[in-house]
């Protein structure tokens, strides 16, 4: 029997069947770009138990996986076959899962004990009489005090409703109290339901979640493209736009986006807007400024200081989000001008601030944030990695939409290309994960050298000159739903080199700062709201992050969403966030004298100094031979 994790699916297995075949029978789709021939290495799984019941690693597996990875239980699903009866527990890591609908709203699940900022209290009042004609509001507050011990104020808009609702409900009401000090809702019914809205505001995409504040469960989630995108792709161009007196335009955009997401979830779940009593929101520092209507202008000028670093609670009606109008919106604190509340959320979700061992977190985007450290302390930096991994500035690049090629494999020797697209549509372009794959695969196949240059001696019709420029064909026009061949150009490779060099240089400078070696990093979290999973193995081959055993690397997707939910659910988490924002040391890369040389050396694939990438070098030597 085989048990597939994280699905918890059990299925009977027969001798000689491969794990890939068994997964297929169980309805679990695992990536297999090469068609299960042991060539592409995309069907990596981790054997958690029962390895003895499987065949020994094949030559193909020894090529695709390092010795260390094999020791840790990594296998290729197409190669590992059942030899003996007995239970095998197989974990399919996210990057190998081919479930086509990869929601960016998915992230790592973080366990948080609910301790919401709001409480719902059912209050019974004595009816007024001639003997006791205390005013309504005072009567209610006194009842709350005697029942719960809480001395609360009343939101002005709520105050207006009190006399009416008290009488309508026959002096039995439910009230919602925020942070034990302010009454933000009064209702006639006794429903205990309390919901909250968590929003992760990305520069490119936004994700919204409605959470049951009592159980902590997510009841609905959705995502949209940030409507501000029409005013510029990156934060700096948004700042520029806001300077032209258009801050309010940008602010409305993001508020409308949030309301749209909420409307969609509320409609699906039939949750009334007024039952959403709390909201937490995080984004990069610029997005948070825009959300609050505070000018982000000075963030983009040295010394890059923000207007606001600590968290803030603002009335929903002032902001314009259509949750309960008297409720508060909690905006997470930030670390620095280019390391925002979303990075705080990443940390809350991965809990690296509580870990004994050293962890590194890389949240990949147009600006990539990196955090390094352990429970004793964390440092952070931000690198201008550019939008290449989101498919921008790449000739045939596109976002992770239907028809985007998301995985690529190139067969060494023949240079034939295998690929998978989102929704199995005809290919239209390359999304971020495919772009990482292509560069890694070309390096492995000897199509480019470590300086990133095409090696023209390779004979294949796919490698060709287009005028002065060289390009490699990933998908021919007749197989694609495009008028042109889908290609990767020399310039595209250069873009990837710049992007990954910025990230690696950031990791390197942080490591130097804490005087630690790559091998001291016990956990590497790769995050990013790509909407699809980059392959950690290939990201390592191109040298995006230090050469660590795969076992220590986890792709956690849009983990910021999980962190915002934690802040929504628990005031303890908010307290932690406040501490983190104060304590995390920010390292300004642009001001670091070592940055230039680190960056230039890191433009090589995987790096100019190969001793920094011993495992990748060994692997490349094996495949190139």
């Amino acid at each position, binding site marked *: 029997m085989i048990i597939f994790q994280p699905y918890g699916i059990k299925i009977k297995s027969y001798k000689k069947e491969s794990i890939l075949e068994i997964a297929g029978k169980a309805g679990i789709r695992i990536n297999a770009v090469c068609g299960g021939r042991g060539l592409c290495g995309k069907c990596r799984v981790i054997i958690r138990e029962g390895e003895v019941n499987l065949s020994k690693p094949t030559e193909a597996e020894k090529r695709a996986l390092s010795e260390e990875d094999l020791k840790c239980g990594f296998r290729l699903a197409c190669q590992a076959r059942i030899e003996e009866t007995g239970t095998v527990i197989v974990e399919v890591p996210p990057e190998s899962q081919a479930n086509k609908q990869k929601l960016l709203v998915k992230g790592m699940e973080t366990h948080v004990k609910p301790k919401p900022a709001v409480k719902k209290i059912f209050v019974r009042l004595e009816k007024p009489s001639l003997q006791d004609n205390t005013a309504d509001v005072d009567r209610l507050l006194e009842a709350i005090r005697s029942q719960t011990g809480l001395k609360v104020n009343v939101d002005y808009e709520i105050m207006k409703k009190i006399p009416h609702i008290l009488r309508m409900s026959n002096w039995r009401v439910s009230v919602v109290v925020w942070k034990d000090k302010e009454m933000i809702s009064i209702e006639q019914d006794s429903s205990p339901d309390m919901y909250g809205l968590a929003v992760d505001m990305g520069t490119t995409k936004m994700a919204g979640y409605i959470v049951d504040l009592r159980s902590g469960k997510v009841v609905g989630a959705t995502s949209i493209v940030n409507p501000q995108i029409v005013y510029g792709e990156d934060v*700096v*161009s948004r*700042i*520029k736009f806001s*300077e032209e007196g258009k801050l309010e335009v940008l602010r409305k955009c993001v508020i409308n986006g949030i309301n749209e997401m909420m409307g969609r979830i509320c409609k699906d779940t039939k949750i009334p807007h007024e039952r959403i009593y709390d909201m937490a929101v995080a984004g990069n520092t610029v997005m948070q400024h825009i959300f609050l209507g505070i000018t982000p*202008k000075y963030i*983009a*000028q*040295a010394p890059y200081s923000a207007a606001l670093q600590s968290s803030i609670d603002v009335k929903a009606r002032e902001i314009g989000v259509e949750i309960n109008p008297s409720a508060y919106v909690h905006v997470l604190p930030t670390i620095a001008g280019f390391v925002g509340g979303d990075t705080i959320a990443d940390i809350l979700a991965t809990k690296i601030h509580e870990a004994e061992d050293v962890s590194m977190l890389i949240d990949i985007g147009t600006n990539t944030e990196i955090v390094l450290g352990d429970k004793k302390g964390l440092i952070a930096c931000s690198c*201008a990695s550019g939008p290449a991994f989101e498919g921008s500035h790449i000739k045939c690049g596109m976002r992770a939409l239907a028809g985007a090629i998301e995985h690529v494999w190139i067969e060494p020797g023949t240079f034939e290309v295998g690929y998978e697209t989102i929704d199995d549509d005809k290919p239209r372009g390359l999304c971020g994960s495919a772009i990482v794959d292509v560069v890694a695969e070309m390096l492995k196949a000897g199509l480019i050298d470590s*300086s*990133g*240059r095409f090696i023209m001696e390779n004979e294949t019709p796919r490698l060709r000159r287009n005028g*002065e*420029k*060289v390009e490699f064909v990933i998908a021919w026009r007749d197989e694609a739903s495009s008028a042109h061949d889908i290609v990767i150009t*020399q*310039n595209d490779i*250069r873009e990837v*080199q*710049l992007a990954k060099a910025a990230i690696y240089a950031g990791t390197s400078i942080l490591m130097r700062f804490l005087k630690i070696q790559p091998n001291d990093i016990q956990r590497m979290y790769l995050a990013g709201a790509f909407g699809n999973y980059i392959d950690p193995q290939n990201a390592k081959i191109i040298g995006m992050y230090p050469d660590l055993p795969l076992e220590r690397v986890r792709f956690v997707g849009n983990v910021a969403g999980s962190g915002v939910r934690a802040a929504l659910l628990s005031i303890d988490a908010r307290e932690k966030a406040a501490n983190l924002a104060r304590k995390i040391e920010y390292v*300004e890369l*642009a*001001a670091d004298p070592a*940055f*230039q040389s680190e*960056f*230039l*050396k890191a*433009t*090589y694939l995987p790096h*100019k100094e190969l001793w920094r990438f011993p495992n990748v070098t060994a692997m490349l030597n094996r495949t190139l031979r």
Partner: protein
Amino acid sequence: MPRKTIFIAKKVLLFKEVTCLMGKEDEIMDRLRDAIVNLDIDGVKKACKEAIEAGISAYKAITDGMAKGMEIVGEKYEKGEYFLAELMMAGEVMKEGVKILEPYLKRGEAKKIGKVVIGTVRGDLHDIGKNIVINLLEAAGFEVIDLGVDVPPERFVEAVKQNNPDIVGMSALLTTTMMEMKKVIDALKEAGLRDKVKIIIGGAPITPEFAEEIGADAASGDAVEAVSICKSWVERRRGI
């Protein structure tokens, strides 16, 4: 490198027809050029020493040897064959060679081809692009005064007053800081220095239209282009 062997073999054949010295000189000049193209520091150093020993003029070794190599490097960069690190490296290699040859330059030959004051504008700390330009300018024979990063307009003005350069170069990576360039140009105008210098600007968000808008003389798309624009300016100036 079989091609190179053939190349050298051809030169060996030349020996018989031309004088022995000429052949030797050509061979050293080719090696100077190739060592730059191949980013070979040791090769350049060796070829420079041999050039001196063979009595080749230091000036010629730089301009007809290594500088030719830099041109090829520039072409390779434009075609995408070379990338930033190679460009930077080529500049470094050339400078190593120049260090060896400099003491042998005759009076007048040691003169730099032009003077450039350069800096990243106020509010911007990014300097890799600017440093690559400086590296290539120096390799091309310019004297460069680097004002560093986050440079306010006053410091540009002051540096122009003090150094009397041919060219002022400005760099900005952020769209939010590029307007600083206009402030620098305005400050130069106010100080009556604008017409004394050519102004070139560069950086990710910079376009020729923007250069025109703020009154700069040129915008360069990359470091190689920047150097060739600067060279054409000083050559024209000398031509007059």
